[in-house]
């Protein structure tokens, strides 16, 4: 089933990989014009503080600063999350909506095993896209005079992947408990965006500051991983969230009447 799931998604995986790699190359190709350009530094210093915080603009002219602002501030983590949420919402609810689950479960496999194997495929797929992201930036960066440490890059990619996997597992849980793909997608996407906004606006809105820790975005990417590296405590929080959501998915799916 694991292999089957990966095969089913292979076209989607290839498409997303190409898309992400292309996006990275485009962003990288702009960097040489910005790198060591004092005029840009002045422009960004002239921007309001609010703007710089919102878009994670720290030091645009260095490799980590540029990637932090252009790649990891919104786009890359959200792309990974979107990919993973679409897959996650389909994991349980898709076969139910299409009606193929009847035949699959008539085989000697438990509902839990079906869900677990499909989830492992999803996790591998998400990690694969993360690896594409990391490989493109890390290997092609130097060609565009962008240097970034592997440790920082890995921390940012891992944070993005963990963020994506958490909301994909949420989409799975909602889909498994309700049988509706749309509901899983909707809830997970809305909460992922809310999580980002909470983290992005917290520096400016004092009411958000106190609850900023609630944001999984903040746990995954809120501490400048490109420069400060991996923080095991934050990743552990994400891992716990994923495990709890996965357990809820199994529980919700196991106890339910499946629709025709």
């Amino acid at each position, binding site marked *: *089933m694991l292999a*089957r799931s990966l095969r*089913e998604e292979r076209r989607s995986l290839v498409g997303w990989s190409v898309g992400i790699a292309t996006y990275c190359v485009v962003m990288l190709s702009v960097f040489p014009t910005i790198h060591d350009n004092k005029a840009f530094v002045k422009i960004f210093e002239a921007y309001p503080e609010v703007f710089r915080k919102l878009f994670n603009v720290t030091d645009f002219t260095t490799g980590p600063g540029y990637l932090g602002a252009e790649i990891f501030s919104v786009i890359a983590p959200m792309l990974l999350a979107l990919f993973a949420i679409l897959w996650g919402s389909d994991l349980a609810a898709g076969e139910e909506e*299409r*009606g*193929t*689950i*009847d*035949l*699959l*479960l*008539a*085989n*000697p*496999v*438990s509902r839990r095993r079906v869900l677990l194997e499909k989830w492992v495929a999803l996790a591998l797929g998400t990690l694969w896209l993360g690896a594409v992201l990391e490989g493109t930036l890390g290997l092609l960066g130097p060609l565009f005079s962008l240097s970034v440490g592997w440790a920082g890059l890995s921390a940012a990619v891992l944070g993005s992947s963990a963020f994506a996997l958490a909301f994909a597992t949420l989409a799975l849980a909602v889909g498994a408990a309700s049988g509706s793909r749309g509901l899983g997608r909707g809830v997970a996407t809305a909460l992922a965006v809310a999580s980002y906004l909470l983290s992005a606006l917290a520096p400016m809105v004092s009411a958000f500051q106190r609850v900023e820790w609630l944001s999984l975005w903040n746990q995954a990417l809120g501490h400048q991983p490109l420069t400060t590296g991996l923080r095991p405590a934050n990743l552990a929080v994400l891992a716990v969230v994923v495990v709890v959501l996965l357990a809820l998915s199994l529980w919700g799916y196991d106890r339910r*009447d*499946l629709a*025709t």
Partner: protein
Amino acid sequence: MRELTLEVGWGEVFGFLGPNGAGKTTTIRMLLDLIRPQSGTVRLFGLDARRDAVAVHRRLGYLPGELALYERLSARETLAHFARLRGGPDEATVERWASEFDLELDRPVRALSRGNRQKVGLVGALMNEPDLLVLDEPTVGLDPLVQRTVHRRLRQAAAAGRTVFLSSHVLSEVAEVADRVGLIKDGRLIAIERVAEIRARAIHAVEVRVGAPAGLAALEGVAGVTVRERLDDGLRLEVAGGLNPLLAALAGLDVLDLSVHEPSLEEVFLSYYDGSSR
């Protein structure tokens, strides 16, 4: 579904007969643990349908009523996928079943006709020769030749001591293969009968035309016979409780034409409702 108590034994073909929407598919999906009864238990091979689902499914072949297959896979890939999950059979066996049902294995499922999809489902259910076959409307969409192949295979399975549980809304199909029949309507099992008894109780519509109409008067007093319509040279009759008395009476007449219509499902059910009030 309400109050359904039913036991089916080894080597038996049990037909589950009822109109669409009577609760056949609901019952069958309970056997498969796809849905759970609000109360009561479902046991197969003495095992609990829910707790021991994996062990039960190892010995069971299932054809859903609303068959949905993976559109992007070919029939071969679909069957291979299920064979891997089941631990068998090998590809040669799958090919043998496919050729028996005249099924093309290498076309994608989305390009297959309704009947060919049904064949994929049937081969999937039959290929492991499981101890129990649960088939929801197995011959829907199949041409008569393949229907006969299916029926022959089901009788063979029963002869080998395996059990077949099939549902249908067509009496003739159930009558063709089943030993016993459960009649289900509005979620209730209203009777369990041997096929022969259902035939005997069913009301047949008979039309008879004779050379000498004067003799027709002899038919009017025959047991179980009711005259529905008088024709110039014959009668339209309803015959309850078997055709023998009528045939005996016809023996003395100059019969030109005789047609006997299979009772419709509604008529079968009516005979049971009438029977309970009689």
